[in-house]
């Protein structure tokens, strides 16, 4: 079922769309003793955390730290080897469709459908959520405006620049008006201008009370967006705290914090 939210009748852009009903600050994602083994390697090694509604929660760490694997388990892509993941109070193993109908996923790699045009990428995606064709077209147009691609509706995907594809992926992840938006390195590979544009959109979503989960290895991104960050290293969470508190405790910026906590720099 498509959840409410896109109630605005006139398409006055994203701002005109209704926000989500405020619910009390409860833990919307709860992860307990999570373990994931891959080809004999332990990618995620006993991770615990909880995220409350409306927060922006970041996973910070170098490649191979296990950030993406954690996100993939939260978004019901793969089952945990051990431990539990619950989203909206539902276990991912038992209610994948129900959970997925209420989250949005923006992948790290472009997986737009090259056989479809820009707007079809959105409407076909909306159809997987059982959004009616008429609603889906309206939502798609509003979202194209939100990511400034309204002039590209009929264009084929291979004619878009990298930054445009990125923004279209963001628009697509919002088709179902998700309560949680999961972003895997949302700005990796973008030029500074496009990066700032994505940050603006994400801040906008935060104001609308969307819970954001993201992975990043950019300190600046974590400082700008996240209410709390989990610093990950070799499949474990080293610490979870607010960026400002971490910097107060350990001094300097998040880069220094990371170096201090893990004994190595993020570039490793």
């Amino acid at each position: 079922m498509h959840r409410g939210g896109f109630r605005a009748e006139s398409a006055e852009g994203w701002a005109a769309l209704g926000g989500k009903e405020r619910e009390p600050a409860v833990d919307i994602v709860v992860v307990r003793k999570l373990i994931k083994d891959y080809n004999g390697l332990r990618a995620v090694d006993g991770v615990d955390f909880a995220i409350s509604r409306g927060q922006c929660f970041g996973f910070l760490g170098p490649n191979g730290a296990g950030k993406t694997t954690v996100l993939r388990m939260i978004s019901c892509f793969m089952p945990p080897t051990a431990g539990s993941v619950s989203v909206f109070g539902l276990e991912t193993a038992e209610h994948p469709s129900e959970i997925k109908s209420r989250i949005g996923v923006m992948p790290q790699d472009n997986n737009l459908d090259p056989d479809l045009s820009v707007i079809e990428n959105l409407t076909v995606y909306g159809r997987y959520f059982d959004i009616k064709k008429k609603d889906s077209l309206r939502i798609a147009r509003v979202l194209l405006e939100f990511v400034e691609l309204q002039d590209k509706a009929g264009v084929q995907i291979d004619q878009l620049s990298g930054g445009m594809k990125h923004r279209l992926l963001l628009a697509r992840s919002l088709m179902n008006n998700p309560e949680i938006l999961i972003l895997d390195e949302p700005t990796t590979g973008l030029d500074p201008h496009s990066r700032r544009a994505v940050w603006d959109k994400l801040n906008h979503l935060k104001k609308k009370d969307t819970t954001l989960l993201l992975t990043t290895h950019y300190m600046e991104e974590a400082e700008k967006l996240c209410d709390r960050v989990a610093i990950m290293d070799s499949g474990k969470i080293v610490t979870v705290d607010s960026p400002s508190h971490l910097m107060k405790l350990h001094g300097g910026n998040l880069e220094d914090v990371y170096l201090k906590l893990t004994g190595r720099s993020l570039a490793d």
Partner: protein
Amino acid sequence: MRIKRAFRVWQRHWLVYTKLYKTSFALNFAEPALYLVAMGLGLGSFVKDIHGQPYIKYIAPGIVASSSVFAAVYECTYGTYIRMTFQKTFDAILATPVNLDDLIAGELIWGATKSVIFGITIAIVIALFGLVESPLIILVIPCIFLGGLIFAELSTIFCAIVPGIDSFSYFYTLFMTPLFLFSGIFFPLDSMPPLVADLAFFTPLYHLVIVCRAFTSGSVTNALGSIVWLIVAAVILAPFPFKLMKKRMIM
């Protein structure tokens, strides 16, 4: 698996197909027409009647059967593999309420649908050549769906276990080509050593050819045994594409 969510996947494929068919549809007619002309008229002028039929009439129903199953095979080997790996279409779909079982069911039903599209197209071609005797040929449509489903299942199984896209050559050379040649399309298998006919009995294309031939000439009773064979095979094979794809995609 939820049939509605599988249908959403089918709808995506249908949309893409209807967008592109204008550029490729004529080719659907071309290949079987070439076979009919080259084999039926060319080779046929040197061949005596088979079972009382001119050669072109003998091979026509077999061309319907083989062209239709090849459509499912192309779709569920290269098509599925490209969507699963290079295009990452599967990843995008799996982020929605559609789960892997729904997705695989959608792929299989789409493969079978492609068989039906091609089967009907080629049946029209052979009808235009004047090679259809009975209006019962309409009944061949569900049988072609069944045959297409079996080949979609086999192709998806192969798709789930191949290390790379080049490996499909094995599937085509070692599996599809022998079936194409030894399923009674171009000559009756009773002209071969008995072992060939015995082996052919265990392959799906052989039975689909029998069914197509029976319906084209209007002798339906000849098809009943083979229809049962196709149903049983489709059911027995069904769990494997799901199990093996789960293993590949999730584990």
